[in-house]
């Protein structure tokens, strides 16, 4: 979402600028659904927001267990929101395990809403509680609102004659109803949604609506010891226009469709199921009317191979995966580089190595994207910073791939793929088209064909099989710089290696100069980020600048090649700090490319950075931080932040 350096308006207790709510429950409790609907309700109220779905790798982990907890966090408010928020103000815990795994993150003084109906002896044991935390005083630093949501839900849906199990499934709607009351939200869109969702089973629709209304009424009427307040958040003043919520996976799918249209090409998408990348394939499989053919291949290698085959035949070939799958595609990427065919490869990064953390986010595939192939195999790499930004990045990937006849990697991550944000629906008329052209007659002297002749950008012509008179052969063996015929000679390999490198380096000429997204273009400290760390870095820099610190935020979209002015820009700062969710990969690239003393701030807990973590790191670069306790200059150290204990024990 667009951001600006705006100081927040003074907030009052029942009129805060932003609130962070986390819904946590068993993976079968429908927390992602509850969160998703609450998000929609935030959007309809005109609040800006960012969400963070955090769910286990298991589809249905055993009920009530610590590892089976599924959570959905939303940060919403009347100012610009860039992150899903650090610490929640409100935690809704549907069982003891959800409380145990999430309460540590809750702000001191925050509110816990717990369903006592689930705090049974058995569930407490499963959550490794010796005694009920609700009664033993261990939750003293928070406000606790514990009541039997299960029983209240059962009571509210009694008239519909559901079985006990089905009736209890309505708990999440009861809870949502209470949350809607708390934040002064309209129930009508949810009622419409439930009616549509359970169109074929009106009884279930009625029951869920009854539960929703009952939860809302509970807030309205119950005596809750003054702990529960109705909170109203004003709409964010946003530019006029049409908005929708969008996740990164949706944005990538839409961006690819738009990119193919701008290139005047049909799209072929080869994929293989893998978390968290599969949803891109799911979305595109439903967009066939936009000239998309999707292919669920037998494996990751076949997925990229088929996509390259499609590009060879004149379509825009696209493949998508996550780290382990991208590793399998490496050899085929080399072939796309060698044959110089357009291809877009989307990597929704997750925690690695190996299977790693399938459902958690990380940025640790940067080396893999930039360097991870055999031979000198340069490939442009772009990274998306947010769900909405992934749309533009996907278009940019299509542009570079088709204009430069090269495979391009688009990096997103598990956080971007799953998180939702409000998105100002763009007008396609404003997009700059980049139609692809195909060779239709010989391009060499005396009617000869030179499939590896190059244009001013260093790109070779795209020749579709089926074109009369242009028959030729291509492959992965080194080739003659013009004819493309097999040529292992020293001169040919040197010339072709140089040409492939020069072509990819030259992409830098077609990308915007690096700007500073917050702060001055020179000064004491530049905080340099890429990908989904944008939100927390931006807010941390905003807060530091509000305290008067000379710090700027530089966000890099084009990871390879880097913008041509980036080196000069970095050298105009005394210090460079690079927060990233890996052990310091982009930092190494910057040091290598520019010999700047970039310092890492790293985190690999499977959770996004908290704003406070980056703020704290920034503070170490300044002698006296206004508002903080002053002190001697703290040397910037190679901080490896601890994981958030509360995240997942």
């Amino acid at each position, binding site marked *: 979402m667009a951001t600006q350096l705006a100081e927040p308006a003074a907030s009052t207790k029942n009129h805060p600028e932003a609130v962070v709510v986390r819904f946590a429950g068993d993976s079968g409790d429908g927390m992602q659904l509850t969160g998703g609907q609450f998000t929609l309700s935030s959007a309809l109220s*005109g609040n800006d927001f960012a969400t963070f779905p955090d769910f286990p790798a298991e589809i249905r982990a055993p009920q009530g267990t610590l590892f089976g907890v599924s959570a959905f966090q939303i940060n919403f408010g009347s100012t610009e929101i860039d992150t899903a928020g650090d610490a929640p103000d409100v935690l809704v815990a549907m069982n003891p395990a959800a409380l145990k795994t999430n309460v540590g993150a809750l702000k001191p003084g925050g509110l816990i809403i717990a369903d006592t109906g689930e705090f049974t002896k058995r569930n407490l044991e499963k959550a490794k509680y010796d005694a009920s935390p609700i009664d033993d005083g261990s939750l003293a630093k928070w406000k606790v609102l514990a009541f039997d949501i299960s029983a209240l839900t059962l009571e509210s849906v009694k008239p519909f004659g559901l079985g006990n199990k089905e009736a209890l499934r309505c708990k999440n709607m009861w809870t949502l109803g209470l949350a809607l009351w708390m934040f002064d939200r309209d129930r009508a869109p949810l009622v419409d949604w439930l009616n549509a969702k359970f169109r074929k089973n009106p009884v279930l629709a009625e029951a869920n609506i009854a539960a929703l209304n009952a939860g809302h009424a509970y807030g309205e009427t119950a005596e809750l010891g003054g702990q529960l307040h109705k909170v109203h958040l004003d709409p964010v003043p946003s530019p006029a226009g049409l*908005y929708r919520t969008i996740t990164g996976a949706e944005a990538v799918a839409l961006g690819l469709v738009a990119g193919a249209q701008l290139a005047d090409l049909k799209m072929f998408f080869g994929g293989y199921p893998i978390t968290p990348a599969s949803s891109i394939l799911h979305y595109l499989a439903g967009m066939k009317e936009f000239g998309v*053919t999707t292919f669920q291949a037998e494996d990751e290698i076949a997925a990229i191979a088929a996509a390259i085959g*499609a590009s060879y035949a004149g379509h825009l070939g696209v493949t998508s995966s996550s780290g382990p799958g991208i590793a399998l595609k490496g*050899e*085929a990427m080399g072939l796309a580089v060698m*044959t110089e065919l357009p291809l877009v490869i989307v990597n929704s990064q997750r925690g690695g190595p190996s299977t790693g953390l399938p459902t958690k986010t990380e940025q640790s595939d940067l080396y893999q994207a930039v360097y991870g192939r055999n031979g000198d195999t340069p490939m442009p790499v772009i990274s998306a910073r947010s769900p909405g930004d992934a749309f533009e990045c996907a278009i940019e990937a299509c542009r570079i791939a088709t204009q430069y006849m090269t495979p391009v990697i688009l990096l997103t991550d598990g956080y971007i793929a799953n998180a939702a944000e409000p998105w100002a629906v763009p007008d396609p008329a404003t997009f700059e088209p980049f139609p692809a052209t195909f060779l239709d007659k010989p391009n060499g002297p005396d009617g000869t064909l030179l499939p590896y002749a190059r244009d001013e950008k260093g790109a070779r012509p795209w020749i579709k099989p*089926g074109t009369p008179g242009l028959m030729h*052969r291509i492959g*992965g063996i080194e080739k003659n710089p013009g004819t493309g015929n097999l040529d292992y000679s020293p001169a040919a390999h040197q010339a072709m290696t140089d040409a492939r490198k020069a072509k990819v380096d030259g992409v830098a000429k077609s990308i915007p100069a690096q700007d500073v997204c917050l702060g001055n273009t020179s000064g004491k400290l530049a905080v340099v980020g890429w990908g989904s760390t944008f939100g927390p870095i931006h807010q941390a820099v905003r807060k530091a600048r509000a305290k008067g610190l000379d710090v700027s935020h530089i966000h890099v979209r084009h990871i390879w090649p880097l913008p041509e002015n980036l080196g000069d820009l970095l050298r105009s700062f005394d210090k460079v700090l690079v927060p990233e969710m890996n052990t310091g990969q982009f930092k190494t690239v910057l040091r290598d490319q520019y010999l700047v003393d970039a310092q890492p701030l790293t985190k690999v807990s499977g959770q996004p950075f908290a704003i406070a973590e980056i703020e704290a790191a920034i503070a170490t670069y300044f002698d006296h931080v206004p508002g903080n306790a002053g002190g001697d200059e703290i040397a910037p150290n190679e901080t490896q932040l601890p994981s958030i204990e509360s995240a997942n024990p």
Partner: protein
Amino acid sequence: MNAIATITTTLKDWESDQEVRWCPGCGDYAILKAVQRTMPEIGANPATTVFVSGIGCSSRFPYYMASYGFHTIHGRAPAFATGIKLSNPELDIWLVTGDGDGMSIGGNHTMHLIRRNLNCQIMLFNNEIYGLTKGQYSPTSRQGTTSPTTPLGSVDRPASPAAFALGSGARFIGRGFDVSKHLPDVLKAAHAHRGAAFIEIFQNCIVYNKDVFEDFAAPKGAEDRQLWLKNGEPMLFGSDKTGGVKGIALDAEKLTLKVVDVTDGDWQGAGVIVHDVTNRSVAHMLVEMPFGPFPMALGVLYDDPRPTYEDAVLGQDAQAREGKNTDLRKLLAKGQTWTVSEDQGPLSGV
């Protein structure tokens, strides 16, 4: 094959300007010639013909054909072919692979291409050895094959490409060998089959596995050791001049095939089976028929087309597109949306 216009070409029109770089005497030369001779006869058009290969000696094949060609990566040619065909079904695709490329590193892709029934011809050159990497044993090498990696002889049982293909759901199985004069007929039949046509071509690697097929491929005694299958004709081999005319019959008790003597031309009396290329049960027995006690089954073993993958995929795509709005503006604004008005007034959900 495709319902595209056929054109007139000569063998010369199919020879590329590239120097052929196989070992002198390699069986690949004969196969190349057979293919180049076949193309004019089937009316193929070099501009719409694509040879796709993986890695290995056989996979250099595309460079020598004056059509379009794509030399890809080891074992993955079927996947590239799938992307090409789905993007342009008018292209006539020939896959060139070997026993290592198609049965070992690429076995998975071979299976799935056949199972899906992508319309193309798959020529698997089986020389029972890794040639390009200098003579290691392959998945089709016979037990006991000595090679740099099996100095004491290989211990694993060989795979049978034709049986593998049929087991994967193939609707066409052809077999031939490099120097056979019948090879073009098998290629033509494969091309005439609409769907994935699998052709196993025994190929003599004169450097690393010389004459491994001599038992049945040698001209001398060929009629006793080769069973050339013809649709509608009895499965006869041998001759009165050699060991006598023989036939393949069904052993009804054991439910297997057996060799029977045919006297005075009375093959019916001997119970010889009439070859029906659409009989899948007999096809299963033919691909498993062991050479030695039986002759080598050659020609078209099985041919019974069914709908192709690209027809199904593209048909479904076309159906999904019918009457659908393709306005990008509408797609972007799909789902639940809301409008922010100029005066930041009340919001309206959609």
